[in-house]
């Protein structure tokens, strides 16, 4: 062993030297050596960005594998998905992993976003990181919405009809938007074509650009330190090395998530409880809709809130009011780094924290009501 090690090392060093002479990797290694991650009571939340990234990678890989057999179209989509889960080797596993990782990714993204919000990590100089993160979350939800229709089964068909119908309520552009999304007045085979294009080409392209910007910003600016640290004695601040310490821990978390994903995919290939995606029966536009049509869990709060609104509020339609409410709310949420002046000056804004708690409570309560009410 002792004789072999230097040989290995020298081979590796030669390879490294070959690369370094071409790409000047020394500078990057040097940068990584000095990169540090703050250690504090909320450090665990740093891993949720990485978990989201890992689950996205799982989706890309499983999505590409599903693409090998999936055939979009009203006459082929359902049949091809059935073929994937019943006849293709490990097809059931790939579909289960794809669906589970999608749901877990949205969940991880939510935790990541709220942890950044409540630790005020969006504050200067990370305003653009927050904005790109918001964009990524929006894209992730669009991924979920567009992917839900692709199996062309009964549940997907009617949920998409309701979902796209809501978009039709937007003033001025609503009707055009609805027709653009559906490829006509109704949800048909043309809608699958559009959703498929969106799901496998447009959204991945946009997501890759935003994700690259987000990761570059995170790497360039490093992990955000708690607001309290602004006034803390430097000697009391503790850090860990990004490489290898944090990276190895990140890898460990990824492996644990992979294990959880594998268990969920094998034991619950069609999901469990309210998070489920059974193939069921093929979509039939002429059949009556199922008694309960529900969107995916991450749209439930908005869906339920719109349902609870009266037909008219003051002088405008209830649904329109709801859409305006969510649009303005989303805009405020996205612009919070620019609105929260107090935290930018080194002091936590209680108003912003309470606003975040109210938003989170609203989402949780509405989601619970949505599942309790038929």
């Amino acid at each position, binding site marked *: 062993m002792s004789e072999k090690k230097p040989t290995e090392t020298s081979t590796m060093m030669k390879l490294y030297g070959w690369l370094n002479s071409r790409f000047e990797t020394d500078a990057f290694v040097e940068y990584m050596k000095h990169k540090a991650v703050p250690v504090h009571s909320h450090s665990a939340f740093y891993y949720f960005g990485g978990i989201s990234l890992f689950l996205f990678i799982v989706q890309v890989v499983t999505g590409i594998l599903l693409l090998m057999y999936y055939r979009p179209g009203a006459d082929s989509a359902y049949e091809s998905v059935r073929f994937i889960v*019943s006849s293709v080797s490990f097809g*059931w596993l790939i579909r289960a992993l794809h669906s589970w990782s999608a749901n877990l990714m949205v969940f991880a993204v939510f935790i990541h976003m709220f942890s950044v919000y409540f630790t005020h990590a969006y504050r200067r100089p990370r305003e653009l990181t927050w904005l790109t993160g918001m964009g990524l979350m929006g894209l992730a939800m669009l991924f979920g919405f567009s992917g839900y229709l692709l199996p062309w089964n009964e549940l997907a068909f009617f949920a998409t009809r309701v979902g796209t119908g809501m978009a039709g309520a937007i003033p001025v552009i609503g009707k055009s938007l609805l027709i653009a999304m559906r490829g006509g007045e109704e949800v048909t085979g043309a809608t699958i074509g559009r959703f498929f294009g969106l799901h496998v080409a447009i959204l991945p392209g946009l997501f890759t650009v935003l994700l690259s910007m987000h990761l570059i910003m995170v790497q360039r600016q490093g992990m955000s330190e708690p607001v309290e640290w602004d006034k803390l004695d430097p000697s009391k601040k503790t850090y860990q090395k990004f490489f290898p*310490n944090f990276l190895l821990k990140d890898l*460990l978390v990824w492996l644990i998530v*992979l294990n959880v994903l594998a268990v969920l995919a094998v034991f619950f290939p069609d999901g469990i409880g309210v998070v489920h995606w059974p*193939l069921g029966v093929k979509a039939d536009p002429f059949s009556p809709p199922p008694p309960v049509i529900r969107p995916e869990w991450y749209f439930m709060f908005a869906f339920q809130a719109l349902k609870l609104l009266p037909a008219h509020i003051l002088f405008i339609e209830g649904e329109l009011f709801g859409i305006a409410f969510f649009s303005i709310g989303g805009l405020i949420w996205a612009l919070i780094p620019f609105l929260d002046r107090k935290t930018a000056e080194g002091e936590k804004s209680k108003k912003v924290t309470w606003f975040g708690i109210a938003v989170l409570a609203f989402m949780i309560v509405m989601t619970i009501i949505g599942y309790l009410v038929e």
Partner: protein
Amino acid sequence: MLKNILLISVSMLVALPLASRAQENNCITCHQDLEDQDGPSHKIVRDIHFQKGLMCNDCHGGDPTLDDMDDVAESKGYRGVPSYTEVPSFCARCHSDASYMHEHNPSLPTDQFDKYKTSVHGQRLLKKGDTKVANCISCHSVHEIGDAKFPHSSTYPLNIPATCGKCHGDTEYMSQYGIPTDQLEGYKKSVHGKALLENHDLGAPACNDCHGNHGAAPPGVSSISAVCGNCHAFQAELFDASPHKQAYIENDFPMCETCHSNHLIVQPLDAMVGDAEPAICTECHSSDDGTIGLATAASINAGIKKLVLAHNEAEVVLNEAIEKGMLTTDEEFLLNEVKQELIQARTLVHSFDSTRVVEKTKVGLLKADSVKSNSASLIDEYYFRRKGLGVATLFITIVCIALWIRIKRL
């Protein structure tokens, strides 16, 4: 309760027009004072004729504007109350008049009286003057005649067995005719009776579907024994082409009834065909009767039994695969096809051709085998998935532990 509410509602609906019409119709004004609630002048509000605008004088004649009954009886066209024998022709005045009925209810046939005259009821009443047999009002009631489409009507499908059974189930009343009175009881226990009376399946036959409404038999049926073929067309066609048809005619056996009975038609069992008890075949055939009857029956029985067994075995394995959460859509479809083959094989029994039955069961057996083996493969796949997960999880866990140790040493 529901029936009462319905009756009250109908009564209230017609009460207003009744009040206004009563002002011009002295029949109702006087008779309501003289009669209790069961009297014709009170019951008439529930009658389809009254609801359609006909009044007392449209059937009974006379001038309804007169105050005195003696004057009415002497007025033009007064017919009064018909005798029991006169009732059919009394009703037929309108119901056999095609042009009159066309104005009031064009969808209603006008041949009821002609048919009635051909029926046992009609012949006994009109030719022999037997007033115990049914005439129009025996089945349709009088002064509260309902449309057969309405559930309160005595001729609504669900009520027909009771309507016929009122006489045909009464042993004392029917004693002089020498015919059984257990038809209603038998029908209630039959597959048809249960479908109609218990499951409220209006497609199931009531008495009139086999025996006809007003005539002796439904249109196009030469004999009541062949009436089953109206619905069970395949079975009838197979039977007509079988050697049994001629044998039954020669022996004067009723066709379907010989094996299936007439009113107490129970769900047929596979054991009805075979060479041993409780097979019906043994009632006519024996091993030394010089025919291939029992051998054929035994072969048919064995073929069907084999397919039933294969179907049940495949179903058990398939259910296990379903319970394990495997995707079994194709297998479920295929099992339905096995069931279909079994139904077709059972239908082919009426050909009494064992070759045809066994050929059909062979197709079903092949499909049942596929269901069984495919479902078994899915169950194997289920266990393979768990074993695979176990190996993968173990590997990942070991890597996790190794990483954890490495991190701790940093």
